[in-house]
């Protein structure tokens, strides 16, 4: 911060490659697409319609019903992740980082394996496990005398979405676990030793000493979960198809967008309405991220080691 006057070339050098590649390949095409939301196809080609597409999306019940349904499902999908995935991830990381734990590397690798699988495998294997016909789950429940608990979860309106959210949690729990694990490991030994000298150990050590130190990382995983969930698409597409059955009960913004933008079966892709939905999604996510950046991230106290 010393040389305030001279232009600091190194900043430009550090930023340039990322900004160039990112702008050319991602931002320009994406904003080109979002821009489509302001147009529509009329009699003589593309016409500028201002915000009329948005009026259709939110005002026309044929569109708005699907949109709100998808948004509601998406919110639930996110909530399940926040309530299950992140706490489980933090707990696993806390266990893994306990000193002198044998086999930590093995556990860490094993628990992370679902995360490296492709959606095709995840979708296939869970459908097979939960299938009422080939029945791994019914068979296992039967073995412990709980056959009555089994239901075709993925096929029922009331349970399909939660089941899928839990499958997604299973798949991605490795991500919060890894991030928190890295954060926990970078807490210096001196801090822990000092705590132990004061008699703070075990769970109270975790709550009072470690948790405040890893709060920034928990912030990151929350926002990554938020962004990831509101952009989610593949798992539902692979297991339930683009129509996100039964009866659209698993339809989230990603599947709704895909159907509209690219079309599906006899439904012809509509880039303009698709872009409108994408812009609305972008707005929702941007709101969430800005809230995090401006309201939360600034308040988080950071510790430098």
């Amino acid at each position, binding site marked *: 911060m010393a040389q305030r006057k001279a232009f600091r070339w190194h900043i430009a050098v550090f930023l340039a490659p990322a900004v160039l590649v990112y702008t050319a390949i991602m931002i320009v095409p994406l904003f080109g697409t979002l821009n489509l939301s302001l147009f529509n196809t009329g009699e003589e080609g593309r016409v500028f319609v201002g915000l009329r597409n948005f009026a259709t999306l939110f005002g026309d019940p044929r569109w708005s019903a699907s949109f709100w349904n998808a948004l509601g499902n998406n919110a639930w999908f996110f909530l399940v992740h926040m309530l299950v995935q992140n706490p489980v991830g933090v707990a696993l990381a806390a266990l893994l980082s306990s000193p002198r734990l044998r086999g930590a590397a093995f556990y860490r690798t094993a628990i992370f394996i679902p995360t490296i699988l492709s959606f095709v495998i995840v979708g296939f294997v869970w459908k097979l496990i939960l299938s009422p*016909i080939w029945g791994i789950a019914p068979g296992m429940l039967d073995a412990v005398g709980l056959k009555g608990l089994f239901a075709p979860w993925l096929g029922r309106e009331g349970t399909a979405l939660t089941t899928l959210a839990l499958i997604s949690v299973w798949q991605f729990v490795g991500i919060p676990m890894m991030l928190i694990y890295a954060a926990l490991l970078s807490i210096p030994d001196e801090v822990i030793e000092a705590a132990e000298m004061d008699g703070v150990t075990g769970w109270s050590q975790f709550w009072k000493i470690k948790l405040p130190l890893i709060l920034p990382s928990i912030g990151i995983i929350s926002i990554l979960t938020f962004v990831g969930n509101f952009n989610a698409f593949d798992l539902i597409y692979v297991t339930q198809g*683009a129509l996100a059955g*039964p*009866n659209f009960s698993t339809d989230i913004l990603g599947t709704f967008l895909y159907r509209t933008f690219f079309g599906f079966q006899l439904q012809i892709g509509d880039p303009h309405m698709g872009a409108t939905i994408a812009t609305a999604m972008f707005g929702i996510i941007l709101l969430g991220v800005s809230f995090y950046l401006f309201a939360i991230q600034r308040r988080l106290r950071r510790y430098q080691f």
Partner: protein
Amino acid sequence: MTKTIRLALLTSTLLTGAAWAQDVTLTIESWRNDDLAIWQEKIIPAFEAANPGIKINFAPSAPPEYNAVLNSKLDAGSAGDLITCRPFDASLELFKKGKLADLSDLAAMANFSDVAKSAWQTDDGAQTFCVPMASVIHGFIYNKTAFDELGLTPPRTEAEFFALLDKIKEDGTYIPMAMGTADQWEAATMGYQNIGPNYWHGEEGRKALIEGTSSLTDDGWVAPFRQLAKWKDYLGDGFEAQTYPDSQNLFTLGRAAIYPAGSWEIGVFGPQIGGAFEMGAFPPPVPAEGDTCYISDHTDIALGMNAATKHPEEARKFLEWVGSSEFASLYANALPGFFSLNSAPVEMEDPLAREFVGWRETCEPTIRSTYQILSRGTPNLENETWTASANVITGAETPEAAAERLQQGLAAWHAPQQK
């Protein structure tokens, strides 16, 4: 090692260079992953042998992504020379945007009836843009061995059909019918569109709906839903989560007696059953003895030309061949259950395929009701029909409520229905 490779490369360049200086390769875009081997082993060699200088590359992508991938490639200009055409609006849209070339003047078009071509024409029928390849027929495939064992015969009427299902259920050895609602299209396509034509009287009902003289809440359109609602009791446990491959497996592994089918299954089921039991087929049962029977004989697949191809000459040459009787017989026999649309009769070897195609003689053919014109707006009638059919079977919606919802959706944008 490197030397050998270089040598190999050199010789291959020399050889091809010497023999055919201007070999043209045509790429075919398709959703038929399933047919890769058939194209590579039977169809392409037959064409290439007769047309030296033209090479064909069949490049399919997975069916659910096909439309999205194709449209993106066409928009950006990287699509193949020949385009496999979905029926009706998906292709019509591409033609209107100038992505598909007009093929009306192709000599081979004379080999197809107007009905065969209707799925790939402008609404006024003036221009045709794809060469029809095949249609598929709906009906029911059954486990003949199981039927013999239980002393059952194929039903002709709706009443006989349900009596039959009751008997199979009572006996308990077999699941009466293999169908699930998880994939939704199964319920709509193999259910509603399969049995429906008998109630809405095929083409007559379909056209009346387009013209606005009948409505989806009319009896002819609700009756098939009422039937579907009764199917619930005859499906396997947990059918709500049963997917299409699950249904196929249930039937081919010999666990279910009846399979509501599309004729394409003929070629799929044969090898999977591997002789474990015999199959038979019956057309959708009619409402009452003596009624005319109607079948869904759906124009499903065709081949068009990318308007931006660099080799229009060669592409047209290939399309002429696709319109020939030679191709018709090659294709129909390689893929039993995909029936040629060519006017020239095709001799088929598969007995089950012959059974299906035989219904063309006794029943009135029609195409799926939602495909022409009616799925142009929002909400999309075809997609809505998927959801509605699945809902009716699971009991989430009554037949009447489902029909009411479909009608409202259609009337929201289809002008003739807005009176």
